[in-house]
């Protein structure tokens, strides 16, 4: 088992849910993003989802789109993701990389997996790859100690739920709503049932993301999920302070603390 599964089990034993925080590498700069990830860890994030910016992010809402666009405009490269992964691991958290498929495909999937493991990373979240896509990733992951996290959605059929949960390791990412990443005023209906369906289909652990914004949301999801995934609400902290990283990081700490209290049931 990788550090990811270990950490999630350990957190579960503490009687709480994990806080998983997403930030894209290269926003506002490679160093700035690495530091922001470390600060997020210090403020209570257990697992960092290190985002690899991509030119055509069909799963992402406006906040993450703009952050990715800015990161790419500043010359962020695929290899920068490993710098951020190292920083996260140094800070004492588990790192997984969230990436659309084409950057990994061009880098070379096996080389990507090896470099990620060498940097101390535990796994990948592949939003546009399903287990039956024929990507070849499963063959790469099978010979390495690396987790592959697939997504399930409210529309996922029973047959596909089994396929996806069997093919996933570390955890299964349950998308809390039908839509793109972004903050929402409430958590959509049917999520708890979705988590239950994933567990019934053999998901090792189930974490919930999409639309989670506040400590209250986190507390609500933490009651039934192994982890709570937050992205846009954290990216916004940095985006709201485009020319002032210190102010962005201060906002990031405050939001992270609220969410960290949420996953512990303190709202």
């Amino acid at each position, binding site marked *: 088992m990788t550090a990811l599964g270990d950490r999630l089990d350990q957190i579960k034993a503490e009687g709480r849910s994990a806080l998983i925080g997403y930030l894209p590498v290269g926003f506002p700069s490679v160093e700035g993003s690495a530091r922001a990830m470390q600060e997020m860890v210090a403020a209570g994030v257990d697992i960092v989802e290190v985002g690899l910016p991509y030119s055509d992010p069909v*799963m992402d809402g406006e906040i993450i789109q703009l952050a990715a*666009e800015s990161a790419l405009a500043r010359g962020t490269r695929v290899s920068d993701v490993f710098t951020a992964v190292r920083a996260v691991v140094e800070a004492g958290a588990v790192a997984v990389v969230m990436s659309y498929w084409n950057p990994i*495909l061009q880098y070379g999937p096996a080389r990507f997996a090896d470099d990620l493991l060498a940097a101390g990373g535990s796994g990948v979240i592949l939003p*546009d790859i399903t287990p039956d896509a024929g990507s070849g990733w499963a063959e790469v992951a099978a010979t390495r100690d690396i987790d592959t996290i697939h997504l399930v959605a409210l529309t996922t059929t029973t047959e596909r739920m089994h396929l996806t949960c069997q093919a996933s390791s570390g955890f299964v990412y349950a*998308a809390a709503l039908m839509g793109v990443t972004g903050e929402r005023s409430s958590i959509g209906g049917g999520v708890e049932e979705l988590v239950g369906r994933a567990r019934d289909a053999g998901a090792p652990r189930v974490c919930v993301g999409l639309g989670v914004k506040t400590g209250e949301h986190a507390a609500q999801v933490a009651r039934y999920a192994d982890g709570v995934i937050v992205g846009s609400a954290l990216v916004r902290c940095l985006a709201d302070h485009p020319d002032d990283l210190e102010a962005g990081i201060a906002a990031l700490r405050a939001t992270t603390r609220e969410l960290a209290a949420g996953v512990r049931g303190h709202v």
Partner: protein
Amino acid sequence: MTESLQSAPGPFFGEFGGRFLPEALMAALDELTDAYDKAKVDPSFTVELDRLARDYTGRPSIVTEIPRFARHAGGARIFLKREDLNHTGSHKINNVLGQALLTKRLGKTRVIAETGAGQHGVATATAAALMDLDCVIYMGEEDTERQALNVARMRLLGAEVVAVKTGSRTLRDAINEAFRDWVANVDSSNYIFGTAAGPHPFPAMVRDFQRVIGVEAREQMLALGGLPDAVLACVGGGSNAIGSFDAFLDDADVRLIGCEAAGDGIDTDRHAATLTKGSVGVLHGSRSYILQDEDGQTIASHSISAGLDYPGIGPQHSWLKDIGRAEYWPVSDTEAMDAFRLLCRTEGIMPAIESSHALAGAIKLGRELGPEATLLVTLSGRGDKDVEQAARWFAMMPGEDA
């Protein structure tokens, strides 16, 4: 006997194609694939589609010989397949009517679509009006500026047009935004994809709906004396080209030539020549040739023609290129515009700038092959939408000296 290349079913064409999209869309794509597989063998669907093609679109479209134009093309005999004469002014209506009928069969009440030049958006807005469907069209902001007339046409037809302001503000960003809408509204909405690219079932399904172009043209050419030496069509995503090629795929002596947009030239960084200059990757749900940097980030394309300004290509074209069954030639903005003017002045036919790329290819091939050759060119659309842009190119706007 060699196996037929016609009507290849997907999801993969050789190593190209597939379905690389989020799980959230898989149920909708499966539902669409299933509905299409049933519809295409259901007479209540095919008869209705044929009726619409005849009574609404105006099919079959005619074939026109263009001898005065051909004098500038080595004296070869050149015939145009006149998709420009279809209702709404391009080949796009062929596909849209099929997918709009499918939408009704699925019981959905809203359609979304992307558009580059606006031809697919206009066709979708038209079908939505005809079939009482709500309609939202995503169009890159830059394209709304260069194709303002088509934006007005879509609005007049009752569609909502959303100008996409992210990324390169062109067709590929419009596709991203349409996928985002679809994920969020998949219960009520069907995505009417405009070209033979994207995830399965779109490449095969759109090809099937456009296949009528080549089926008709092949019969028409046989009636006129025989198969042509070559079939030429412009390629952006590649729907009119694959629709033109499919019925000829097993005619080994017929060359198939797709003309892609070389913009300022393939040795500059401003072109959309995906098959000439691209490499294999995944974009918009399928594996195909794309324009990308070494990190797999999509490179912005450029063409004077908004409809060809796309850094990807349908997967079946990538396959036909790799197996050597089709050729893909780059045609620059200047070559296309020269062909545009030549057709206007020699034949009194104003082509779309997209289709002018195929005309430029025909000039080149005609000069190569000479008077013995017979060429069939798909005129995918008419140039009404391009009048302002062409007039600016040739400095013919009022107050400018022509």
